[in-house]
C-alpha cells in the first residue's frame, strides 16, 4: 500500500471466533450462542466447539453465550466454559474477562454453571474498544473528560 487512497480501497472485516467447552459427566449442557440477535448455534454441546462470524470494522456488536439446560439434579457441577474469544487474531480471554458480564453472577467469569447469559459487548468499534481496555492511553476525542 502506497498511499491513503489505496487504503480507502481495502476492505477489511473482523473475524470473530468463540470457543466453548462443555464440562459434564453424562448429560451434556445446552447452549445458545449469538452474535447480536443472530443465533450461531443452539442445542446441546457434547464437545468443545468453535463458532466463527464476521463483522465490519465499525460495527457495534455483542457476542453472547447462554446456558439453557443442564442436569442440575444429577450433575450440579456441569457447566459451559467460554474458553476463548478471538477478534482479528487478538485473544481476549482471560485477559479482558473483566469486560464481560454474566447475568447469573456478580463476578465476571467465563465458567457458566448457572442458567443465564454471558456477554461481551463492544459499544465502540472494536479497535477503539481495544485501545481503551488495553491501556493505550488517550484516544482522539473519545475518552476525553
Amino acid at each position: 500500500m502506497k498511499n491513503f487512497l489505496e487504503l480507502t480501497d481495502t476492505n477489511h472485516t473482523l473475524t470473530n471466533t468463540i470457543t466453548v467447552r462443555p464440562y459434564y459427566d453424562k448429560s451434556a449442557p445446552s447452549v445458545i450462542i449469538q452474535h447480536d440477535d443472530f443465533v450461531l448455534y443452539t442445542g446441546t454441546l457434547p464437545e468443545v466447539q468453535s463458532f466463527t462470524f464476521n463483522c465490519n470494522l465499525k460495527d457495534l456488536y455483542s457476542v453472547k453465550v447462554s446456558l439453557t439446560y443442564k442436569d442440575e439434579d444429577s450433575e450440579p457441577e456441569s457447566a459451559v466454559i467460554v474458553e476463548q474469544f478471538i477478534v482479528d487474531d487478538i485473544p481476549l480471554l482471560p485477559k479482558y474477562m473483566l469486560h464481560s458480564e454474566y447475568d447469573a453472577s456478580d463476578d465476571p467469569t467465563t465458567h457458566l454453571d448457572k442458567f443465564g447469559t454471558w456477554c461481551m459487548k463492544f459499544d465502540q468499534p472494536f479497535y477503539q474498544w481495544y485501545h481503551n481496555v488495553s491501556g493505550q492511553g488517550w484516544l482522539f476525542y473519545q475518552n476525553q473528560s
Partner: protein
Amino acid sequence: MDFKKTFCTSPWIHQRIAHNGNFQFCRWQKTAEPPYDFSQNIDHKTPQQYWDSNMREIRKKLLNGEVLDECSDCHHMEEHGMVSGRQKQLLKCGITVDKFTQTMKSSPLYAHLEYSQNNEGDTRLKPIDWHIDTGNYCNGGCIMCSPYWSSSLAKEFMNNGLAQEMPRKSWADTPEYVDRMVEQLVATDHLHYIHFLGGETLITPAFKTILQRLVQAKISPRVTVGFTTNLMMWDKKIIKLLAEFRTVHVNCSIDCMHEFNDYQRYPAKLYSVMTTLNNWRVIARRHSWQLQIRPTVTNLSAWHLDTVYEYCFKNKLTVESCNFLEKPMHFRISTLPTHFREKITTKLEAFLDKCPKDEQTVINIRNPDTVEHQIVNDCKSYIAYLKNEPDRSELLPKLTEYLMTLEQNSDRGSVLTYLPDYEELLRTNGYKPHTN
C-alpha cells in the same frame, strides 16, 4: 516505502512553536539549523494561519505516501526499535503499525483523513496537542546544548569564541505574541495536551504566564500539561498552578545516575539533582501526576546509561529518550569505536539479564502497568543502535576540540575527572586537559 511506515497523524492533532517563534508541524521533526528562516514566525502569523496553510501541504504529502525529510528522526528511531514520535502520535488516534489498515479504518480520525484527502490537505480540526518552546532562559550549560536553548551557554559561547552574537530574544518575551498563542489555545474546544520546553521551564516567565492565563480562562481542568525540567530548580508557586490542570507530566532531564551527570549537565550536582527528583516524585504521587526520566544520551553519557535503566527499573519510572541524539554530530553515540560500543553493550545486556524476558512493545509509555517492558524496549533500542549504526569515529577530534573549548571555563573541570575510562580514547583524538 510502505504507507504504514511513513504515514503519521501528527499534523491533524499537533503543532509546535519553537524557541525563536517559528512554527513547526511536529515536536519530533528535524529542527532547522541557523541561520533561521523566519517566514513562518509568530511575529507575523497566527498559529491558525500556519495550521491552515503550511501544514495543509504536509498533510497532503503524508496522505500521498511521501517520505518527508523532516521525519527522518522518527524513521531512524524505528529502524533501531525505539518507539518513535510517529508511533506515539498514531496511537493517540487509535492506530497501530502492526494492525495498520484495520486500526486506520477504525480510527475516530478516519473521517477527518478522508476529508483532507478530498480537500487538498485541508482540515476542520484544530491542534489539540501543542509543543511550546518558551525560549532559552536556562541556568544550565549542558555540553550538548546550544545558545538557542540555554542563555547560560550563550554567554559562555560569547566568552570562549564559539559564538559571535547572542541569539535573538525569545518570542515569549513579547506579550503580544504570548497573547496570540494563548488566544489560540483558549479557542480550541478539545485542547488536550500542552508540552512546555525551555531553556529551563521553571525559570522561564512565559511558562508561568501561559499557565496562569489558561487557569484564568477556566480551561485548565480539561488540559494536561507536560514540562521538562533540569532538576536544578524548585518553585512552589508553579506547582500550585500546575495542580489546577487535569493532570501533569513531569519530565526530568538526567543523563546518568553517576557524577558524570555533573559534567554533562554542568553546573548540576548529582546529589542535589537526585534530591529534587525525589521531591518531584513525592509531589507526583500526591497529585497522581506522571513522572518520567528523560536522558539525553551522548557518546560520553552512554558509558553510564545502564545506571539510568537500573534506577528507573527499581523505581518503576518510564525512561523516555526522545530520539537518538543527532546534533551536535560530534556527540553522536555512533562516533564511538567498536570496542567502546561492545563494552557499553555488555553493561546494558547485564541489565537486561535481570529483566523479564517476555517481549512486549509498549507504545503508550505512560501506562504504569507496562513500565518495566517500556524500559526494556528503550534499552534494547540502544543496544541495536550500538551494534548497527555505521561508525562515525572520524568526528572524535571535533569532539575533543569542542570539549577543550568548553573547558576554558575552569569551573567545568576536565572530562577525564568524570570519565576516566575515556582517557585513552580522548587523548588519542587530541584531547589535552587545561592546566591551571
